């Protein structure tokens, strides 16, 4: 029986007016991978911040016992000193510095303040090899993808002689392939005796690597499951406090005529003029139909959607777009919106919301004409609209005057959806609509999507989560390397079929 490396006992942490954690207990064994799951806002990140000293000793109640000793961390330095390293969801790398500089940032091999670059580079090479990243240590962070950046973060953790590695949703923005590589790395660390705590929303990943799962709900530990008890149903039930018989809302599609059609759509890269990103795509969507676009990260799905929507991406865009059989001009965002095309971005914080403004103003932004006369806004009508959508999409907030920056991911997504629903589009393109959202909120988003289709709109859903596509769409396009490589009815589709289409497509492309 392995010894216990970490025990957190009766941790209680209060913020003004909110009890974020109440008597949480966590026990992690030496050398295991311990997963923590829970809905957004359940308290997972708070717990990890308590552990790593972001919230210093004294600001919470309870005990942390690490390797047999009670610890009182005053800051993140104290915990790192003992080998506890946390990798946050938002990566903390400096984009314009090199990999080596980032790894040893604040921790450089230096003498009298003069950096020994050779030593740094040598160490970096060794660390990169360990995490399986084949890059020059001098490469700038900004020039490598998110997946590789994640590996750099892990290399950085290793450089600090980590014994307990905490990863906060490490695979949230990674492709399937990168996620697998990362999980394999964790398993390898496990063999080397490094303990990991993995916070994740992706139950299949947990299933694959975790030895134990602790479920947190509403700031309380619900239960800890051993490997043999881990099952998706069990976890979900514990997470949401009710059993979700069906993860996808039932719907009866009533599909009509073709509403939206794209023909021979081609796009070139905005910087590398000779690189064709989208290669002659044809798609069509019918009234009341939910169409999915599957594909790996980097397949060009977002680029396709954004180039369609007011040419927000790319150069030398060619192709035709038809709405109700007539060619339409959607070469600027405002024209696209006027014609009834809406695009809900995959990155709601960067591209979807004004985080320093409240719900009301965000909801009406894409359709200010809908609440104004002669360009003068009718405040009360706007308030009615905002409250109406708040109710319709079940945005949980104290009022529509709450800043969107203070909402949880799921509620932020509902605000973005509300904004586009109020613009009353005929065609709605949803890009990763449930990314970083917990199970409960996902269901609500699916319900909204189903309702949109039932109202007779054409809906396109881009998603990296194949079960989600299989669960909510009527038809799935498979995209790879800028091409559509497959099309299938959802009833006949499966994850294997989609993957096969991708792989076959890869063969074709080369």
């Amino acid at each position, binding site marked *: 029986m392995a010894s216990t490396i970490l025990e957190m006992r009766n941790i209680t942490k209060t*913020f003004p007016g*909110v009890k*974020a954690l109440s008597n949480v207990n966590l026990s992690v064994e030496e050398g295991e991978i311990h997963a923590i799951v829970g*809905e*957004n*806002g*359940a*308290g997972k990140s*708070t717990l990890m911040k308590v552990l790593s000293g972001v919230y210093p000793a004294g600001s919470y109640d309870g005990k942390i016992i690490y390797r047999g000793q009670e610890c009182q961390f005053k800051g993140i330095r104290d915990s790192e000193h003992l080998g506890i390293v946390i990798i946050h969801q938002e990566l903390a790398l400096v984009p314009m510095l090199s990999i080596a500089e980032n790894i040893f940032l604040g921790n450089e091999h230096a003498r009298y303040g003069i950096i020994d670059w050779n030593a740094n580079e040598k160490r970096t090479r060794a660390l990169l090899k360990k995490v399986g990243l084949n890059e020059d240590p001098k490469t700038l962070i900004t020039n490598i993808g998110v997946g590789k950046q994640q590996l750099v973060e892990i290399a950085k953790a290793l450089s600090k002689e980590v014994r307990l590695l905490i990863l906060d949703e490490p695979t949230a923005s990674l492709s399937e392939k990168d996620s697998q590589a990362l999980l394999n790395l964790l398993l390898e660390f496990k063999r080397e005796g490094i303990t990991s705590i993995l916070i994740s929303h992706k139950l299949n990943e947990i299933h694959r690597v975790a030895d134990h799962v602790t479920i947190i*709900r*509403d*700031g309380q530990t619900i239960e800890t499951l051993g490997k043999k008890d881990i099952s998706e149903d069990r976890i979900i039930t514990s997470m949401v406090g009710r059993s979700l018989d069906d993860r996808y809302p039932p719907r009866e599609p009533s599909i009509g005529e073709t509403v939206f059609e794209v023909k021979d759509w081609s796009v070139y890269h905005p910087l590398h003029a000779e690189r064709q990103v989208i290669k002659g795509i044809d798609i069509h969507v019918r009234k009341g139909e939910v169409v999915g676009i599957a594909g790996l990260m980097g397949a060009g799905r977002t680029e396709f959607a954004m180039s369609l*929507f*007011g040419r*927000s991406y790319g150069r030398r865009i060619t192709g035709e777009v038809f709405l109700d059989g007539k060619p339409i001009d959607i070469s*600027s*965002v*405002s024209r*696209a*919106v*006027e014609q009834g095309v809406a*695009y809900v*971005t995959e990155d709601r914080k*960067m*591209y*979807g*919301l*004004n*985080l*320093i*403004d409240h719900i009301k*103003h965000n909801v009406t*932004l*894409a359709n*200010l*004409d809908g609440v*104004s006369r002669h*360009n*003068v*806004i009718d*405040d*009360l009508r706007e*308030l*009615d609209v905002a409250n109406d959508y708040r109710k319709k999409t079940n945005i*949980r*907030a*104290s009022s529509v005057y*709450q800043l969107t920056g*203070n*909402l*949880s991911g*799921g*509620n932020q997504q509902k605000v973005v959806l509300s*904004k586009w629903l109020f*613009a009353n589009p005929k065609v709605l393109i949803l890009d990763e609509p449930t990314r970083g959202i*917990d199970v*409960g*909120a996902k269901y609500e988003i699916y319900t909204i999507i189903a309702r949109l289709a039932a109202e007779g709109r054409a809906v396109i859903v881009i998603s990296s989560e194949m079960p989600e596509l299989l669960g909510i769409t009527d038809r799935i396009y498979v995209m790879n390397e800028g091409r559509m490589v497959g099309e299938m009815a959802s009833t006949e589709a499966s994850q294997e079929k989609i993957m096969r289409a991708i792989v076959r497509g890869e063969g074709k492309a080369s």
Partner: protein
Amino acid sequence: MSTESVPTPTGVAEDVQQKPRMAVSALVTNLREYGLVLALIAIMLFFQYTTSGTLFKPVNLSNLVQQNSFIIVMALGMLLVIVSGHIDLSVGSVAGFIGALAAMMMVIWPLGIFSNPLVVSIVCLIIGGLIGAAQGYWIAYHRIPSFIVTLAGMLIFRGLCQALLGGGSSVGPLPPGFKALSSGFIPELIGTWTLVPPTVNAAGKTIFGSGLSLQMTTVIIGIICVLASAFFGIRSRRTRERHGYEAEPFSLFLIKTVIMSALVLFLVYQFATYRGLPVVLVVMGLLIGLFVFVTKRMTIGRRIYAMGGNAKAAQLSGIKTERLTLLVFVNMGVLSALGGLIIAARLGQAVPAAGLGSELDVIAAVFIGGASAMGGVGQVVGAVVGGFIMGVMNNGMSIMGVNVDYQQVVKGLVLLGAVIFDVYNKNKA
């Protein structure tokens, strides 16, 4: 943190629960909002005391308005620039250049009928707009940082201003009709009402305190303003309640209205005992009203805030961010030109140093008024009050005889203090 985990109370329970809390929270948020006005009042009272009552003297109030109006006029444009996430360092130089141009057109160049002050003013405002467009073009469509573009503009237009005036000389005197823009008062249409007839003493001088008469046009305008604001305030409360939304507590509304009305009436009374409302105050008042309306009620105002808050999201919501940025700078150019005309009209001549350094006062006014350097946040009223805080401090310290060097130190400290207070407040919230 846990907006999701807190279950939403539904139905009637929600309303009942929230009522007592509403009043308190409304008071707290309003206190923050009106903190700036309270600060201005406190500063005014302070200087009223230290200058032994000179500050509120009718003559001095008129001076105060005439000296600072150009800062406030330009601050209106600067607010939009800063809210949209940019900065304009060129406004002082543009004002100087336009003042010089106006003087040349009216005094030196043989333009015949086109040297008429009104024609010159209109032409100058248009040229101001073109200058704004020229700078805004590079900022909006070529994404050159506004700091750099307007820094260049600052150098260019100061140089042009000096070149236009032929080196170091000043050009004047400007025609009286033009000077009225700054030093004039609104014409008395109704007549004056003598409260205390002037008593002449043995030496043939009027005794202090006697000879009090009111400019009735000014008084009437003041009363109309107060009544109109009260009327619209009540009407908007009514409509809110009719729609089933709770308006702010009536007591708070009443206190606010009474205090603001008293303040306005007091100032109007002071002006009325002197020569009435300064023309420039009326111009400024109308502009403030217009900009409050544009920022609070019009779609273009909302779009500017959205753009400043998140330009990319605004663009993907169908807002033409480039054109909007250009318009913001055109607006700034026009207001800089108006500022330049006001400066020239007050001095009665164009001087090479007109408006020198005023861009800093203008920017300071906007930041004291609570705008964020990151964009997306800021209020017209805040910028105006910020401008008045700077103005009252200038004026009060001058009367007190504080050395000009130390006046700058004090202004700097107030700017820093105001922003620190703001940031502290935000972090606490």
